[in-house]
Protein backbone atom coordinates (compact mmCIF):
# COMPACT_ATOMS: atom_id res chain seq x y z
CA UNK A 1 0.00 0.00 0.00
CA UNK A 2 2.86 2.34 0.78
CA UNK A 3 4.22 2.39 -2.77
CA UNK A 4 0.91 3.66 -4.08
CA UNK A 5 1.27 6.68 -1.85
CA UNK A 6 4.82 7.39 -3.05
CA UNK A 7 4.18 6.67 -6.73
CA UNK A 8 3.15 9.57 -8.91
CA UNK A 9 -0.52 9.56 -9.83
CA UNK A 10 -1.09 8.20 -13.31
CA UNK A 11 -1.11 10.89 -15.88
CA UNK A 12 -1.55 11.29 -19.56
CA UNK A 13 1.70 11.20 -21.54
CA UNK A 14 0.71 14.45 -23.24
CA UNK A 15 1.30 16.21 -19.92
CA UNK A 16 4.90 14.98 -20.04
CA UNK A 17 5.19 16.30 -23.56
CA UNK A 18 3.77 19.63 -22.44
CA UNK A 19 6.21 19.80 -19.52
CA UNK A 20 9.14 19.28 -21.85
CA UNK A 21 7.69 21.71 -24.39
CA UNK A 22 7.44 24.40 -21.71
CA UNK A 23 11.18 24.26 -21.05
CA UNK A 24 11.91 25.32 -24.63
CA UNK A 25 11.73 29.12 -24.37
CA UNK A 26 11.67 29.79 -28.11
CA UNK A 27 8.86 27.31 -28.66
CA UNK A 28 6.78 28.81 -25.88
CA UNK A 29 7.23 32.35 -27.18
CA UNK A 30 6.57 31.05 -30.70
CA UNK A 31 3.31 29.50 -29.61
CA UNK A 32 2.13 32.66 -27.87
CA UNK A 33 2.99 34.76 -30.93
CA UNK A 34 1.29 32.26 -33.24
CA UNK A 35 -1.87 32.13 -31.14
CA UNK A 36 -1.89 35.91 -31.03
CA UNK A 37 -1.64 36.14 -34.82
CA UNK A 38 -4.41 33.57 -35.27
CA UNK A 39 -6.58 35.50 -32.81
CA UNK A 40 -5.79 38.77 -34.60
CA UNK A 41 -6.75 37.37 -38.00
CA UNK A 42 -9.85 35.37 -37.13
CA UNK A 43 -11.41 37.29 -34.24
CA UNK A 44 -10.14 40.77 -35.11
CA UNK A 45 -12.51 41.42 -38.03
CA UNK A 46 -15.52 40.96 -35.70
CA UNK A 47 -14.23 43.74 -33.45
CA UNK A 48 -12.63 46.09 -35.96
CA UNK A 49 -15.18 48.50 -37.52
CA UNK A 50 -13.64 48.83 -40.99
CA UNK A 51 -14.07 46.28 -43.76
CA UNK A 52 -11.07 45.11 -45.76
CA UNK A 53 -12.73 45.96 -49.05
CA UNK A 54 -14.43 49.24 -48.12
CA UNK A 55 -13.09 51.95 -50.43
CA UNK A 56 -12.94 55.49 -49.08
CA UNK A 57 -11.05 57.35 -51.77
CA UNK A 58 -11.04 60.64 -49.85
CA UNK A 59 -8.93 59.24 -47.04
CA UNK A 60 -6.35 57.51 -49.21
CA UNK A 61 -2.63 57.16 -48.46
CA UNK A 62 -3.00 58.16 -44.83
CA UNK A 63 -0.24 57.52 -42.35
CA UNK A 64 -0.49 55.81 -39.00
CA UNK A 65 -3.32 57.22 -36.92
CA UNK A 66 -5.64 56.15 -34.16
CA UNK A 67 -8.48 55.46 -36.60
CA UNK A 68 -6.20 53.57 -39.01
CA UNK A 69 -3.35 52.06 -36.95
CA UNK A 70 -1.49 50.97 -40.10
CA UNK A 71 -2.73 53.72 -42.39
CA UNK A 72 -4.75 53.38 -45.58
CA UNK A 73 -3.75 52.31 -49.08
CA UNK A 74 -4.00 54.07 -52.44
CA UNK A 75 -7.78 53.47 -52.55
CA UNK A 76 -8.38 54.47 -48.95
CA UNK A 77 -8.87 50.94 -47.69
CA UNK A 78 -7.91 50.36 -44.08
CA UNK A 79 -4.63 48.41 -44.04
CA UNK A 80 -5.23 47.08 -40.53
CA UNK A 81 -8.40 45.36 -41.75
CA UNK A 82 -6.70 44.16 -44.92
CA UNK A 83 -3.95 42.62 -42.83
CA UNK A 84 -6.54 40.64 -40.85
CA UNK A 85 -8.32 39.49 -44.00
CA UNK A 86 -5.05 38.65 -45.73
CA UNK A 87 -3.92 36.70 -42.69
CA UNK A 88 -7.14 34.70 -42.70
CA UNK A 89 -6.52 33.60 -46.26
CA UNK A 90 -2.81 32.92 -45.80
CA UNK A 91 -3.33 30.95 -42.59
CA UNK A 92 -6.29 29.03 -44.00
CA UNK A 93 -4.34 28.08 -47.11
CA UNK A 94 -1.35 27.08 -44.99
CA UNK A 95 -3.37 24.96 -42.58
CA UNK A 96 -5.51 23.18 -45.19
CA UNK A 97 -2.52 22.56 -47.45
CA UNK A 98 -0.57 21.24 -44.47
CA UNK A 99 -3.36 18.85 -43.47
CA UNK A 100 -3.74 17.57 -47.03
CA UNK A 101 -0.02 17.19 -47.58
CA UNK A 102 0.58 15.43 -44.26
CA UNK A 103 -2.38 13.13 -44.89
CA UNK A 104 -1.07 12.25 -48.34
CA UNK A 105 2.48 11.80 -47.10
CA UNK A 106 1.48 9.67 -44.12
CA UNK A 107 -0.80 7.48 -46.20
CA UNK A 108 1.81 6.84 -48.86
CA UNK A 109 4.52 6.35 -46.24
CA UNK A 110 2.47 3.84 -44.25
CA UNK A 111 1.40 1.93 -47.34
CA UNK A 112 4.95 1.80 -48.67
CA UNK A 113 6.40 0.77 -45.33
CA UNK A 114 3.77 -1.80 -44.44
CA UNK A 115 2.98 -3.51 -47.73
CA UNK A 116 6.15 -4.69 -49.41
CA UNK A 117 4.35 -5.22 -52.70
CA UNK A 118 3.68 -1.50 -53.27
CA UNK A 119 6.90 -0.29 -51.63
CA UNK A 120 9.01 -0.19 -54.77
CA UNK A 121 6.33 1.48 -56.82
CA UNK A 122 5.45 4.14 -54.23
CA UNK A 123 9.08 4.99 -53.49
CA UNK A 124 9.85 5.38 -57.20
CA UNK A 125 6.86 7.70 -57.33
CA UNK A 126 8.28 9.68 -54.41
CA UNK A 127 11.68 9.90 -56.10
CA UNK A 128 9.97 11.05 -59.26
CA UNK A 129 8.14 13.83 -57.43
CA UNK A 130 11.35 14.86 -55.69
CA UNK A 131 13.00 15.20 -59.08
CA UNK A 132 10.36 17.60 -60.37
CA UNK A 133 11.24 21.29 -60.46
CA UNK A 134 8.59 22.25 -57.92
CA UNK A 135 8.28 26.02 -57.98
CA UNK A 136 8.16 26.22 -61.79
CA UNK A 137 5.62 23.41 -61.75
CA UNK A 138 3.51 25.17 -59.14
CA UNK A 139 3.55 28.31 -61.25
CA UNK A 140 2.55 26.37 -64.35
CA UNK A 141 -0.22 24.54 -62.49
CA UNK A 142 -1.68 27.70 -61.05
CA UNK A 143 -1.58 29.29 -64.50
CA UNK A 144 -3.27 26.34 -66.19
CA UNK A 145 -6.11 25.46 -63.87
CA UNK A 146 -6.99 28.95 -62.73
CA UNK A 147 -9.75 29.57 -65.28
CA UNK A 148 -11.49 26.17 -65.29
CA UNK A 149 -11.58 25.90 -61.48
CA UNK A 150 -12.70 29.49 -61.04
CA UNK A 151 -15.59 28.90 -63.42
CA UNK A 152 -16.70 25.74 -61.60
CA UNK A 153 -16.40 26.83 -57.97
CA UNK A 154 -16.37 30.61 -58.23
CA UNK A 155 -13.21 32.72 -58.12
CA UNK A 156 -12.40 32.54 -54.41
CA UNK A 157 -13.17 28.88 -53.73
CA UNK A 158 -11.73 27.77 -57.06
CA UNK A 159 -8.37 29.44 -56.51
CA UNK A 160 -8.32 28.38 -52.87
CA UNK A 161 -8.80 24.75 -53.92
CA UNK A 162 -6.22 25.13 -56.69
CA UNK A 163 -3.50 26.57 -54.49
CA UNK A 164 -4.13 24.20 -51.59
CA UNK A 165 -4.05 21.14 -53.85
CA UNK A 166 -1.05 22.37 -55.78
CA UNK A 167 0.95 22.94 -52.59
CA UNK A 168 -0.11 19.60 -51.09
CA UNK A 169 0.66 17.61 -54.25
CA UNK A 170 4.16 19.07 -54.47
CA UNK A 171 5.15 18.77 -50.81
CA UNK A 172 4.17 15.36 -49.39
CA UNK A 173 7.39 13.54 -50.29
CA UNK A 174 9.46 14.34 -47.21
CA UNK A 175 6.74 13.17 -44.81
CA UNK A 176 6.27 9.99 -46.85
CA UNK A 177 9.96 9.14 -46.62
CA UNK A 178 10.19 9.76 -42.88
CA UNK A 179 7.01 7.78 -42.17
CA UNK A 180 8.08 4.88 -44.37
CA UNK A 181 11.40 4.60 -42.57
CA UNK A 182 9.68 4.55 -39.18
CA UNK A 183 7.04 2.06 -40.26
CA UNK A 184 9.70 -0.28 -41.62
CA UNK A 185 11.37 -0.31 -38.21
CA UNK A 186 8.11 -0.56 -36.22
CA UNK A 187 6.85 -3.44 -38.32
CA UNK A 188 9.59 -5.71 -36.94
CA UNK A 189 8.77 -4.97 -33.29
CA UNK A 190 7.45 -7.70 -31.03
CA UNK A 191 4.18 -6.01 -30.23
CA UNK A 192 3.28 -5.87 -33.89
CA UNK A 193 4.13 -9.54 -34.18
CA UNK A 194 1.97 -10.24 -31.11
CA UNK A 195 -0.92 -8.27 -32.56
CA UNK A 196 -0.59 -10.08 -35.83
CA UNK A 197 -0.43 -13.48 -34.15
CA UNK A 198 -3.85 -12.99 -32.62
CA UNK A 199 -5.21 -12.28 -36.06
CA UNK A 200 -5.44 -8.51 -36.17
CA UNK A 201 -6.32 -7.48 -39.72
CA UNK A 202 -3.80 -5.10 -41.40
CA UNK A 203 -6.23 -2.19 -41.37
CA UNK A 204 -6.63 -2.26 -37.59
CA UNK A 205 -2.95 -3.05 -37.08
CA UNK A 206 -2.05 0.11 -38.97
CA UNK A 207 -4.65 2.33 -37.33
CA UNK A 208 -4.27 1.07 -33.74
CA UNK A 209 -0.63 0.04 -33.44
CA UNK A 210 1.48 1.67 -36.11
CA UNK A 211 -0.05 5.10 -36.67
CA UNK A 212 0.08 6.26 -33.02
CA UNK A 213 3.78 5.41 -32.98
CA UNK A 214 4.63 7.47 -36.04
CA UNK A 215 2.64 10.40 -34.69
CA UNK A 216 5.62 12.35 -33.41
CA UNK A 217 7.60 12.59 -36.67
CA UNK A 218 4.33 13.34 -38.43
CA UNK A 219 3.53 16.18 -36.05
CA UNK A 220 6.99 17.68 -36.44
CA UNK A 221 6.83 17.52 -40.21
CA UNK A 222 3.31 18.97 -40.03
CA UNK A 223 4.55 22.14 -38.32
CA UNK A 224 7.42 22.48 -40.77
CA UNK A 225 4.94 21.93 -43.59
CA UNK A 226 2.70 24.68 -42.26
CA UNK A 227 5.60 27.12 -42.42
CA UNK A 228 6.53 26.04 -45.95
CA UNK A 229 2.92 26.18 -47.13
CA UNK A 230 2.49 29.75 -45.87
CA UNK A 231 5.71 30.81 -47.58
CA UNK A 232 4.77 29.03 -50.82
CA UNK A 233 1.34 30.62 -50.92
CA UNK A 234 2.81 34.04 -50.28
CA UNK A 235 5.44 33.47 -52.96
CA UNK A 236 2.76 32.49 -55.47
CA UNK A 237 0.68 35.55 -54.59
CA UNK A 238 3.80 37.67 -54.73
CA UNK A 239 4.56 36.50 -58.25
CA UNK A 240 0.97 37.26 -59.25
CA UNK A 241 0.03 33.59 -59.65
CA UNK A 242 -2.07 33.30 -56.52
CA UNK A 243 -5.31 34.98 -55.55
CA UNK A 244 -6.79 37.76 -57.73
CA UNK A 245 -5.65 41.34 -57.02
CA UNK A 246 -8.74 42.51 -55.13
CA UNK A 247 -8.42 39.58 -52.76
CA UNK A 248 -5.94 40.38 -50.02
CA UNK A 249 -3.41 37.81 -48.85
CA UNK A 250 -0.16 38.66 -47.11
CA UNK A 251 1.93 37.79 -50.17
CA UNK A 252 -0.33 39.87 -52.38
CA UNK A 253 -0.11 42.82 -49.98
CA UNK A 254 3.71 42.69 -50.12
CA UNK A 255 3.59 42.63 -53.92
CA UNK A 256 1.16 45.57 -54.02
CA UNK A 257 3.19 47.49 -51.46
CA UNK A 258 6.42 47.23 -53.45
CA UNK A 259 5.03 49.64 -56.05
CA UNK A 260 4.78 52.27 -53.32
CA UNK A 261 8.09 51.36 -51.72
CA UNK A 262 9.60 54.83 -52.06
CA UNK A 263 6.70 56.83 -50.63
CA UNK A 264 5.13 54.39 -48.17
CA UNK A 265 7.64 51.72 -47.22
CA UNK A 266 5.46 50.39 -44.39
CA UNK A 267 2.93 49.07 -46.88
CA UNK A 268 5.27 46.32 -48.11
CA UNK A 269 7.05 45.86 -44.81
CA UNK A 270 4.06 45.21 -42.53
CA UNK A 271 2.66 42.15 -44.32
CA UNK A 272 6.22 40.92 -44.74
CA UNK A 273 6.73 41.20 -40.99
CA UNK A 274 3.51 39.27 -40.40
CA UNK A 275 4.57 36.45 -42.73
CA UNK A 276 8.01 36.30 -41.18
CA UNK A 277 6.68 36.32 -37.63
CA UNK A 278 4.19 33.55 -38.40
CA UNK A 279 6.76 31.36 -40.11
CA UNK A 280 9.36 32.01 -37.43
CA UNK A 281 6.95 31.16 -34.62
CA UNK A 282 5.76 28.02 -36.38
CA UNK A 283 9.35 26.90 -36.95
CA UNK A 284 10.13 27.45 -33.27
CA UNK A 285 7.04 25.46 -32.28
CA UNK A 286 8.27 22.66 -34.55
CA UNK A 287 11.69 22.80 -32.90
CA UNK A 288 10.18 22.57 -29.42
CA UNK A 289 7.80 19.84 -30.49
CA UNK A 290 10.65 17.75 -31.85
CA UNK A 291 12.43 17.91 -28.48
CA UNK A 292 9.23 17.39 -26.50
CA UNK A 293 8.12 14.35 -28.49
CA UNK A 294 11.50 12.65 -28.33
CA UNK A 295 11.31 10.32 -25.30
CA UNK A 296 15.13 10.19 -25.12
CA UNK A 297 15.30 13.91 -24.38
CA UNK A 298 12.08 14.13 -22.36
CA UNK A 299 12.44 13.88 -18.60
CA UNK A 300 16.07 14.93 -18.56
Amino acid sequence: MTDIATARPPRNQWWDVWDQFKTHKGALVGMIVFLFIVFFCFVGPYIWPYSATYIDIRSRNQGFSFAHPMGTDQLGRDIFARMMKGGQVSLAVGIVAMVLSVFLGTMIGVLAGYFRRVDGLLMRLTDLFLALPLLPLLLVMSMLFRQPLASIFGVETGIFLLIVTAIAVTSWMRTARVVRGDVLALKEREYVLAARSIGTPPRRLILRHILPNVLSPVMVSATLMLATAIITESALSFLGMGFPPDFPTWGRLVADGIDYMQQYPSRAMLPGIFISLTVLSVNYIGDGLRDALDPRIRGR
Partner: protein
Amino acid sequence: MFTYTLRRLLLAIPTLLFIALAIFLLLELSPGDPMADMPLTIPPEVREQMRLALGLGEAWYIRFGKWLYMFSVVEPSHVLANMTGIESLAVEGQRIISFQSRSPVADIIAQRLPQTLWVVGLSYILGILIAVPIGVYSAYRQYSWFDQLGAFVSMVGFSLPTFFTGPLLILIFSIWLGWFPIIYDTTLVVDSWHNLGLQIRQMAMPVFVLTLYNAAQINRFMRASMLDNFTQDYVRTARAKGMTERVVVLVHVLRNSMIPVVTVIALGIPTIFTGAIITEQIFRVNGLGQLLIIAIYASDLPMVLTLSMVFAILIVGFNLIADLMYALLDPRIRYD
Protein backbone atom coordinates in the same frame (compact mmCIF):
# COMPACT_ATOMS: atom_id res chain seq x y z
CA MET B 1 30.17 0.70 -57.32
CA PHE B 2 30.59 0.86 -61.09
CA THR B 3 27.57 -1.33 -61.77
CA TYR B 4 25.59 0.75 -59.28
CA THR B 5 26.53 3.96 -61.08
CA LEU B 6 25.61 2.40 -64.39
CA ARG B 7 22.29 1.17 -63.06
CA ARG B 8 21.45 4.58 -61.64
CA LEU B 9 22.39 6.29 -64.88
CA LEU B 10 20.20 3.93 -66.85
CA LEU B 11 17.36 4.44 -64.39
CA ALA B 12 17.68 8.21 -64.77
CA ILE B 13 16.72 8.03 -68.44
CA PRO B 14 13.16 6.68 -67.99
CA THR B 15 12.72 9.03 -65.01
CA LEU B 16 13.61 12.03 -67.13
CA LEU B 17 11.47 10.80 -70.01
CA PHE B 18 8.54 10.44 -67.67
CA ILE B 19 9.06 13.93 -66.23
CA ALA B 20 9.29 15.36 -69.74
CA LEU B 21 6.05 13.65 -70.70
CA ALA B 22 4.32 14.82 -67.51
CA ILE B 23 5.33 18.44 -68.01
CA PHE B 24 4.45 18.25 -71.70
CA LEU B 25 0.98 16.87 -71.03
CA LEU B 26 0.43 19.41 -68.26
CA LEU B 27 1.24 22.20 -70.70
CA GLU B 28 -0.92 20.51 -73.31
CA LEU B 29 -3.95 21.00 -71.06
CA SER B 30 -3.10 24.66 -70.90
CA PRO B 31 -5.91 27.02 -71.81
CA GLY B 32 -3.31 29.72 -72.42
CA ASP B 33 -3.19 30.41 -76.16
CA PRO B 34 0.08 31.70 -77.65
CA MET B 35 -2.07 33.52 -80.23
CA ALA B 36 -3.97 35.42 -77.57
CA ASP B 37 -1.79 38.52 -77.94
CA MET B 38 -2.42 38.80 -81.69
CA PRO B 39 -4.86 41.47 -82.88
CA LEU B 40 -8.50 40.40 -83.07
CA THR B 41 -8.73 41.69 -86.63
CA ILE B 42 -6.79 38.70 -87.96
CA PRO B 43 -9.27 36.51 -89.86
CA PRO B 44 -9.83 33.01 -88.45
CA GLU B 45 -8.27 31.18 -91.38
CA VAL B 46 -5.09 33.26 -91.18
CA ARG B 47 -5.04 32.67 -87.42
CA GLU B 48 -5.27 28.95 -88.09
CA GLN B 49 -2.35 29.15 -90.50
CA MET B 50 -0.32 31.04 -87.93
CA ARG B 51 -1.03 28.29 -85.43
CA LEU B 52 0.17 25.74 -87.99
CA ALA B 53 3.30 27.82 -88.52
CA LEU B 54 4.01 27.62 -84.79
CA GLY B 55 3.84 23.83 -85.11
CA LEU B 56 0.62 23.51 -83.15
CA GLY B 57 -1.28 21.62 -85.85
CA GLU B 58 -0.08 18.08 -85.24
CA ALA B 59 -1.16 15.51 -82.67
CA TRP B 60 0.48 15.81 -79.27
CA TYR B 61 2.54 12.62 -79.49
CA ILE B 62 4.12 13.73 -82.76
CA ARG B 63 4.98 17.10 -81.30
CA PHE B 64 6.34 15.46 -78.16
CA GLY B 65 8.53 13.17 -80.24
CA LYS B 66 9.80 16.08 -82.30
CA TRP B 67 10.49 18.18 -79.23
CA LEU B 68 12.32 15.29 -77.62
CA TYR B 69 14.51 14.86 -80.68
CA MET B 70 15.24 18.58 -80.84
CA PHE B 71 15.91 18.79 -77.12
CA SER B 72 18.22 15.81 -76.93
CA VAL B 73 20.01 16.00 -80.31
CA VAL B 74 19.68 19.29 -82.16
CA GLU B 75 20.00 21.79 -79.31
CA PRO B 76 22.94 20.12 -77.52
CA SER B 77 24.80 19.92 -80.82
CA HIS B 78 24.36 23.64 -81.39
CA VAL B 79 25.45 24.44 -77.84
CA LEU B 80 28.51 22.26 -78.36
CA ALA B 81 29.24 23.92 -81.69
CA ASN B 82 29.02 27.35 -80.08
CA MET B 83 31.27 26.39 -77.21
CA THR B 84 33.98 24.76 -79.28
CA GLY B 85 33.68 27.05 -82.27
CA ILE B 86 33.47 24.08 -84.65
CA GLU B 87 30.45 24.77 -86.84
CA SER B 88 30.29 21.30 -88.32
CA LEU B 89 29.25 19.82 -84.97
CA ALA B 90 25.81 21.40 -85.23
CA VAL B 91 23.15 19.00 -86.47
CA GLU B 92 20.97 20.27 -89.29
CA GLY B 93 17.29 20.61 -88.54
CA GLN B 94 14.60 22.62 -86.87
CA ARG B 95 15.60 24.08 -83.51
CA ILE B 96 13.32 24.72 -80.53
CA ILE B 97 11.95 28.19 -81.20
CA SER B 98 10.56 30.43 -78.48
CA PHE B 99 7.05 31.71 -79.27
CA GLN B 100 7.92 35.09 -77.81
CA SER B 101 11.21 36.05 -79.41
CA ARG B 102 11.22 33.65 -82.38
CA SER B 103 14.83 32.73 -81.64
CA PRO B 104 16.21 29.38 -80.53
CA VAL B 105 15.52 28.61 -76.89
CA ALA B 106 19.06 27.43 -76.23
CA ASP B 107 20.49 30.78 -77.33
CA ILE B 108 18.25 32.71 -74.94
CA ILE B 109 19.13 30.36 -72.09
CA ALA B 110 22.81 30.81 -72.91
CA GLN B 111 22.35 34.60 -72.67
CA ARG B 112 20.61 34.37 -69.32
CA LEU B 113 22.80 31.75 -67.70
CA PRO B 114 25.81 33.95 -66.76
CA GLN B 115 23.71 36.31 -64.59
CA THR B 116 22.11 33.44 -62.70
CA LEU B 117 25.41 31.63 -62.27
CA TRP B 118 27.15 34.74 -61.01
CA VAL B 119 24.55 35.93 -58.56
CA VAL B 120 23.13 32.65 -57.33
CA GLY B 121 26.26 30.57 -57.61
CA LEU B 122 28.32 33.12 -55.74
CA SER B 123 25.73 33.29 -52.97
CA TYR B 124 25.78 29.51 -52.67
CA ILE B 125 29.57 29.41 -52.36
CA LEU B 126 29.54 32.26 -49.85
CA GLY B 127 26.77 30.51 -47.93
CA ILE B 128 28.89 27.35 -47.63
CA LEU B 129 31.98 29.31 -46.61
CA ILE B 130 30.05 31.10 -43.87
CA ALA B 131 27.92 28.21 -42.68
CA VAL B 132 30.57 25.52 -42.22
CA PRO B 133 32.87 27.33 -39.73
CA ILE B 134 29.88 28.68 -37.77
CA GLY B 135 28.32 25.23 -37.64
CA VAL B 136 31.58 23.68 -36.46
CA TYR B 137 32.16 26.23 -33.74
CA SER B 138 28.57 26.27 -32.45
CA ALA B 139 28.57 22.48 -32.22
CA TYR B 140 31.91 22.56 -30.40
CA ARG B 141 30.62 25.08 -27.90
CA GLN B 142 27.07 23.74 -27.68
CA TYR B 143 24.64 25.96 -25.71
CA SER B 144 27.20 28.80 -25.49
CA TRP B 145 26.04 32.28 -26.37
CA PHE B 146 27.67 31.89 -29.79
CA ASP B 147 25.64 28.74 -30.43
CA GLN B 148 22.43 30.38 -29.24
CA LEU B 149 23.05 33.40 -31.44
CA GLY B 150 23.94 31.20 -34.41
CA ALA B 151 20.79 29.12 -33.90
CA PHE B 152 18.67 32.26 -33.73
CA VAL B 153 20.22 33.85 -36.81
CA SER B 154 19.91 30.66 -38.84
CA MET B 155 16.30 30.22 -37.69
CA VAL B 156 15.58 33.77 -38.82
CA GLY B 157 17.42 33.31 -42.10
CA PHE B 158 15.53 30.09 -42.66
CA SER B 159 12.13 31.61 -41.86
CA LEU B 160 12.27 35.02 -43.52
CA PRO B 161 11.01 34.68 -47.08
CA THR B 162 13.23 36.27 -49.72
CA PHE B 163 10.35 38.46 -50.86
CA PHE B 164 10.50 40.12 -47.45
CA THR B 165 14.27 40.40 -46.96
CA GLY B 166 14.70 41.60 -50.55
CA PRO B 167 12.41 44.65 -50.32
CA LEU B 168 13.75 45.34 -46.82
CA LEU B 169 17.30 45.58 -48.17
CA ILE B 170 16.13 47.69 -51.10
CA LEU B 171 14.42 50.03 -48.66
CA ILE B 172 17.46 50.39 -46.43
CA PHE B 173 20.37 50.33 -48.85
CA SER B 174 18.84 51.73 -52.06
CA ILE B 175 16.18 54.16 -50.93
CA TRP B 176 17.44 55.45 -47.59
CA LEU B 177 21.19 55.10 -47.93
CA GLY B 178 21.46 55.04 -51.72
CA TRP B 179 24.47 52.72 -51.73
CA PHE B 180 23.29 50.08 -54.17
CA PRO B 181 21.23 50.35 -57.39
CA ILE B 182 17.72 48.85 -57.37
CA ILE B 183 17.93 47.37 -60.84
CA TYR B 184 20.58 44.92 -61.98
CA ASP B 185 22.29 46.21 -65.11
CA THR B 186 23.19 43.29 -67.37
CA THR B 187 24.83 45.41 -70.05
CA LEU B 188 27.61 46.37 -67.67
CA VAL B 189 30.94 45.02 -68.93
CA VAL B 190 33.58 44.57 -66.28
CA ASP B 191 36.68 46.02 -67.96
CA SER B 192 37.97 48.46 -65.37
CA TRP B 193 38.23 48.80 -61.61
CA HIS B 194 35.39 51.30 -61.66
CA ASN B 195 33.06 48.90 -63.46
CA LEU B 196 34.11 46.09 -61.17
CA GLY B 197 33.01 48.25 -58.27
CA LEU B 198 29.67 48.88 -59.96
CA GLN B 199 29.26 45.17 -60.59
CA ILE B 200 29.98 44.33 -56.95
CA ARG B 201 27.56 47.01 -55.80
CA GLN B 202 24.70 45.76 -57.94
CA MET B 203 25.35 42.17 -56.94
CA ALA B 204 25.61 42.90 -53.22
CA MET B 205 21.93 42.80 -52.28
CA PRO B 206 20.71 39.74 -54.20
CA VAL B 207 23.82 37.84 -53.17
CA PHE B 208 23.31 38.80 -49.53
CA VAL B 209 19.66 37.72 -49.50
CA LEU B 210 20.44 34.34 -51.01
CA THR B 211 23.57 33.86 -48.92
CA LEU B 212 21.58 34.36 -45.73
CA TYR B 213 19.09 31.73 -46.80
CA ASN B 214 21.67 29.19 -47.99
CA ALA B 215 23.93 29.69 -45.00
CA ALA B 216 21.02 29.23 -42.60
CA GLN B 217 20.13 25.88 -44.11
CA ILE B 218 23.65 24.49 -44.38
CA ASN B 219 24.53 25.74 -40.91
CA ARG B 220 21.72 23.71 -39.34
CA PHE B 221 22.90 20.53 -41.06
CA MET B 222 26.54 21.19 -40.20
CA ARG B 223 25.83 21.73 -36.52
CA ALA B 224 23.56 18.68 -36.21
CA SER B 225 26.07 16.49 -38.00
CA MET B 226 28.97 17.71 -35.82
CA LEU B 227 26.92 17.08 -32.67
CA ASP B 228 26.15 13.52 -33.81
CA ASN B 229 29.84 12.84 -34.22
CA PHE B 230 31.04 14.42 -30.98
CA THR B 231 29.38 11.66 -28.95
CA GLN B 232 31.01 8.86 -30.96
CA ASP B 233 33.56 6.54 -29.43
CA TYR B 234 36.33 7.43 -31.86
CA VAL B 235 36.35 10.99 -30.52
CA ARG B 236 36.99 9.73 -27.02
CA THR B 237 39.71 7.44 -28.37
CA ALA B 238 41.36 10.31 -30.17
CA ARG B 239 41.30 12.44 -27.04
CA ALA B 240 42.57 9.54 -24.94
CA LYS B 241 45.52 9.15 -27.28
CA GLY B 242 46.38 12.72 -26.35
CA MET B 243 45.60 14.49 -29.56
CA THR B 244 45.14 18.22 -29.41
CA GLU B 245 41.59 19.57 -29.58
CA ARG B 246 42.48 21.15 -32.86
CA VAL B 247 43.27 17.82 -34.47
CA VAL B 248 40.29 16.10 -32.86
CA VAL B 249 37.81 18.71 -34.04
CA LEU B 250 39.20 19.78 -37.37
CA VAL B 251 40.56 16.46 -38.59
CA HIS B 252 38.62 13.65 -37.00
CA VAL B 253 35.18 15.08 -36.31
CA LEU B 254 34.99 17.58 -39.14
CA ARG B 255 35.92 15.06 -41.81
CA ASN B 256 33.34 12.59 -40.63
CA SER B 257 30.58 15.10 -40.22
CA MET B 258 31.21 16.57 -43.66
CA ILE B 259 29.84 13.37 -45.23
CA PRO B 260 26.13 14.18 -44.87
CA VAL B 261 26.76 17.89 -45.32
CA VAL B 262 28.52 17.41 -48.65
CA THR B 263 25.53 15.49 -49.96
CA VAL B 264 23.17 18.17 -48.70
CA ILE B 265 25.28 20.75 -50.52
CA ALA B 266 25.19 18.68 -53.71
CA LEU B 267 21.43 18.23 -53.43
CA GLY B 268 21.03 21.99 -53.06
CA ILE B 269 22.89 22.91 -56.23
CA PRO B 270 19.86 22.54 -58.55
CA THR B 271 17.98 24.99 -56.37
CA ILE B 272 20.66 27.51 -57.35
CA PHE B 273 18.86 27.62 -60.65
CA THR B 274 15.25 27.15 -59.65
CA GLY B 275 15.14 28.62 -56.16
CA ALA B 276 16.23 32.08 -57.14
CA ILE B 277 13.11 32.82 -59.18
CA ILE B 278 11.74 35.20 -56.55
CA THR B 279 15.05 36.89 -55.79
CA GLU B 280 15.68 37.49 -59.46
CA GLN B 281 12.22 38.95 -59.77
CA ILE B 282 12.74 41.34 -56.84
CA PHE B 283 16.15 42.63 -57.89
CA ARG B 284 15.34 42.60 -61.61
CA VAL B 285 18.20 40.23 -62.40
CA ASN B 286 17.39 38.87 -65.84
CA GLY B 287 18.48 35.32 -65.18
CA LEU B 288 16.90 31.95 -65.79
CA GLY B 289 14.24 32.28 -63.08
CA GLN B 290 12.97 35.54 -64.49
CA LEU B 291 13.01 34.04 -67.98
CA LEU B 292 10.75 31.25 -66.74
CA ILE B 293 8.29 33.68 -65.16
CA ILE B 294 8.05 35.76 -68.33
CA ALA B 295 7.61 32.61 -70.43
CA ILE B 296 4.82 31.40 -68.15
CA TYR B 297 3.01 34.74 -68.36
CA ALA B 298 3.24 34.75 -72.15
CA SER B 299 2.31 31.02 -72.51
CA ASP B 300 5.56 30.47 -74.35
CA LEU B 301 5.23 26.69 -74.23
CA PRO B 302 8.55 25.65 -75.82
CA MET B 303 10.45 27.89 -73.41
CA VAL B 304 8.58 26.68 -70.31
CA LEU B 305 8.97 23.06 -71.33
CA THR B 306 12.67 23.35 -72.14
CA LEU B 307 13.51 25.32 -69.00
CA SER B 308 11.59 22.94 -66.73
CA MET B 309 13.34 20.05 -68.40
CA VAL B 310 16.76 21.64 -67.85
CA PHE B 311 15.87 22.09 -64.18
CA ALA B 312 14.69 18.47 -63.95
CA ILE B 313 17.94 17.20 -65.49
CA LEU B 314 19.93 19.24 -62.98
CA ILE B 315 17.92 17.83 -60.07
CA VAL B 316 18.18 14.21 -61.22
CA GLY B 317 21.88 14.63 -62.01
CA PHE B 318 22.79 16.13 -58.67
CA ASN B 319 20.68 13.55 -56.81
CA LEU B 320 22.81 10.92 -58.49
CA ILE B 321 26.03 12.78 -57.68
CA ALA B 322 24.96 13.16 -54.04
CA ASP B 323 24.29 9.42 -53.73
CA LEU B 324 27.59 8.52 -55.34
CA MET B 325 29.50 10.97 -53.19
CA TYR B 326 27.91 9.50 -50.11
CA ALA B 327 29.26 6.10 -51.09
CA LEU B 328 32.68 7.47 -52.01
CA LEU B 329 33.15 9.46 -48.81
CA ASP B 330 31.74 6.93 -46.38
CA PRO B 331 33.44 3.55 -46.62
CA ARG B 332 30.70 2.01 -44.47
CA ILE B 333 28.20 2.46 -47.28
CA ARG B 334 28.39 0.01 -50.12
CA TYR B 335 25.74 -0.12 -52.77
CA ASP B 336 26.84 -3.46 -54.31
